[in-house]
């Protein structure tokens, strides 16, 4: 579903991403983790065709995102950490707009089911300005799922959600994966990654430092194979964990 080969992104002379190669197959959920500035968002933006790669290729369902952007983009959905919406379109108008862009003939029934599932049905005529952050996030999800994408990218999907929203989001991601979508999630929340991802990719300074199934990475970075993902993260990125509270100087 997602095939990335030698993906490199330069900002001037600064290398934001260097030679990333990976594959995510149908039903796979890849967790993209790394410290701040590791290149996670750049990776997702390159994969979604928002920014052009400097080198390398990205195939989405067999379509090169750079050479056949329309065919590739038709198969994907990209969810940013901040819900981006057109603030002059209502909830229902957003769905209508997306339906025409992606040519979804049966959009009304799908859209109605989605907004009911996401508890937005009574907000159909509301503008984004009248919605809470969580509601906006739900609307973005409804828009993204309207055309049943085969490839889904999430950038920090749990930001700003309440516990119920978090639970629903996790379920929704796993449901899409079970239905055969390839999913990539970029997140700092390692427990989320541990809970729902089948694969893990750790980036540091724009370079891939680890890639594989969660168990494979556990085996690689911890001899006993039972270490927590947080510990693995610190080992893989050569970062010292912050001192425990008890060891902090007392004020």
């Amino acid at each position, binding site marked *: 579903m997602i095939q990335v080969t030698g993906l490199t992104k330069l900002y001037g002379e600064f290398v934001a991403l260097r030679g990333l190669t990976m594959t995510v197959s149908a039903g796979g959920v890849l967790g993209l983790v790394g410290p701040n500035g590791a290149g996670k968002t*750049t990776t997702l933006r390159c994969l979604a065709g928002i920014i052009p790669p400097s080198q390398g290729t990205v195939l989405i369902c067999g379509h090169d995102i750079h050479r056949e952007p*329309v065919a590739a983009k038709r198969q994907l959905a990209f969810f940013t950490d901040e819900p981006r919406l057109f603030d*002059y379109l209502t909830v229902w108008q957003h769905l*209508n707009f997306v*339906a025409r862009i992606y040519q979804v003939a049966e959009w009304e029934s799908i859209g109605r089911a989605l907004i009911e599932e996401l508890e937005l049905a009574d907000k159909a005529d509301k503008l984004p300005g009248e919605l809470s952050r969580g509601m906006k996030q739900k609307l973005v999800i409804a828009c993204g799922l309207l055309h049943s994408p085969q490839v889904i990218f999430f950038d920090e999907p749990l930001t700003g959600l309440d516990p119920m929203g978090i639970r629903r989001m996790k379920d929704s991601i796993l449901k899409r994966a079970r239905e055969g979508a390839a999913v990539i999630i970029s997140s700092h929340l390692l427990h989320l990654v541990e809970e729902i991802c089948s694969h893990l990719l750790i980036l540091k300074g724009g370079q891939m430092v680890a890639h594989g199934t969660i168990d494979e990475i556990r085996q690689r970075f911890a001899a006993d194979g039972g270490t927590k993902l947080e510990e693995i993260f610190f080992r893989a990125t050569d970062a010292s964990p912050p001192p425990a509270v008890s060891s902090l100087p007392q004020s």
Partner: protein
Amino acid sequence: MTSALIYLILMTWRNRLVTRFKRLKQPKYLLGAVVGGLYFYFYFYRFLFRDRGGNPKGGFQDSDLALIELIGAAILCLIVLSFWFFPSKRAALTFSEAEVAFLFPAPISRRTLIHFKLLRSQLAILITVFFLALLSAGAGSWRLTLMHAGGYWVALSILSLHSLGASLERTRLLDRGLTNWGRRFIVLSLVLGVGVWVALWTRQTLPPLTDADTASAKSIISYGKALLTSGPLLYVLAPFRLMVKPRFAPDLISFLLALWPALLLMLLHYFWVIRSNVAFEEASLEASQKLAERVAAARAGNWRAAKKNQKAARAPFKLRPLGSPVIALLWKNLIGAGSILSARFLIVMLAIAFGVSMGMRGGMGKSGGPVAIAMMAAALAVWSLLFGPQVLRQDFRREVPQMDMLKVLPMPGWQIALGQILTPVVLLSGVQWLLVLVAMIFATQIETTKLPWELILGIGGSIALLLPCLNLVSLLIPNAAVLLFPSWFQTGKDAPHGIEATGQRIIFALGQFLALGLSIVPAAGVFLIFFFTFRLVLPVWVVLPIAALATALGLLITAGFGVYFLGKLFDRFDLSNETTA
């Protein structure tokens, strides 16, 4: 504590200025500042540096000045009444979100917060006074300019204090059980009472109003002068006259004599405000959040969202799920332009246009009224062709912050470009067709030249055919500029403000005029070839639309290449260069 707040105000302004000066190292800001500076220099040149005759009264007679002073006082009176009549919310001193976060939990008294608010409002008042003084300085000497500045400062400061005091007092009345409608009833009763008093006095004192009194503007002014200068209105407006008197003082002595009562009034207002002990924090908190949202929307160029009460707009047409996605972008942007398209707005505009046109026709009869209206409509159409693309921005210019949303759409670049650019083309063309129609209707009424109706139809139809194509070509430039120089359209806190922004807009407008001019030259050639070729065998009114059609096709081909190029620019547009730095 107050010193800390003064420090906050001064440092905010200093840092803002320093940042703006530092930005001048970048060519885009420097060029914008130079062009903007030149624009302001020449704009104010006539006020600042022209030979001034030193006429402190600006050519007015004493009686005229007294009348102007009274009119100014009456306007202030209406503004003050509006402070008491219209608002319905509790007192909300406007603070930024950061100020709320730092100052509200801090050990600062309510009175100090009010002082902070007053100090900050003074900065805004001083800037306003500076520009007002510049505009009014042409009539006299530098001393007079300073006196005018002093006059404006006193009047605006009292007005600002009264606005604040009224908002606090309204809240106190609400707390004591007087509802908004109760307060409005009292204000309305007072206004009606004064109105009845004035009407009775007028009936008893002034001669009855005759047709002669309303025959001309001069006689109406004369009657109004009598009403304002010799009746109860003279006393009712007395405090407001105190506010405006320093501004109209012809010399230094008069100014000083007028200044001290105004200062006394200001002092009374000051004590009134700072002695108000009304809880404004909760309402201010809500107001600051709304203000922050509106500022963010305005900085992002989204003035619709920046408005206080944003309402969902009805879709202009039913968007079917299948078909060209270009139409989806047009549909979306037309909804975004909802306030312009609303049926109520169009009906009001049509009613006004119809009323004005009929009024002018009726008033002028055969004396050139139709000519004036036809020419005015034509001039407005030309103006909209030149400046419309700068005003209507429902295209890439408004979507810079949402560019990544457009980037993920499964559409080729040229389709996105076309979809984005179509909305202002449609809106502008609609307005222009209306203006052409008005010009055509009134051109048929011109009796001096007796233009045949078929010729008018030919000319109007040809222009109507050409205008959308010209709009399309014209809008390519500002949109290409966004994609070529996106940082010039930066939004958020780094967006250019003031002189630099004015300069940048002037540069883009000049670029747009140049492109329009260049595209018109070959189009005009096509038009002339077709016109003179077909003129040999066909009448003018038939030849004109034929030539226009050929020219329109030529312009459409040009625009087609332009849209394709714009699409390529969009495809190559690297958002990362703008979002990282």
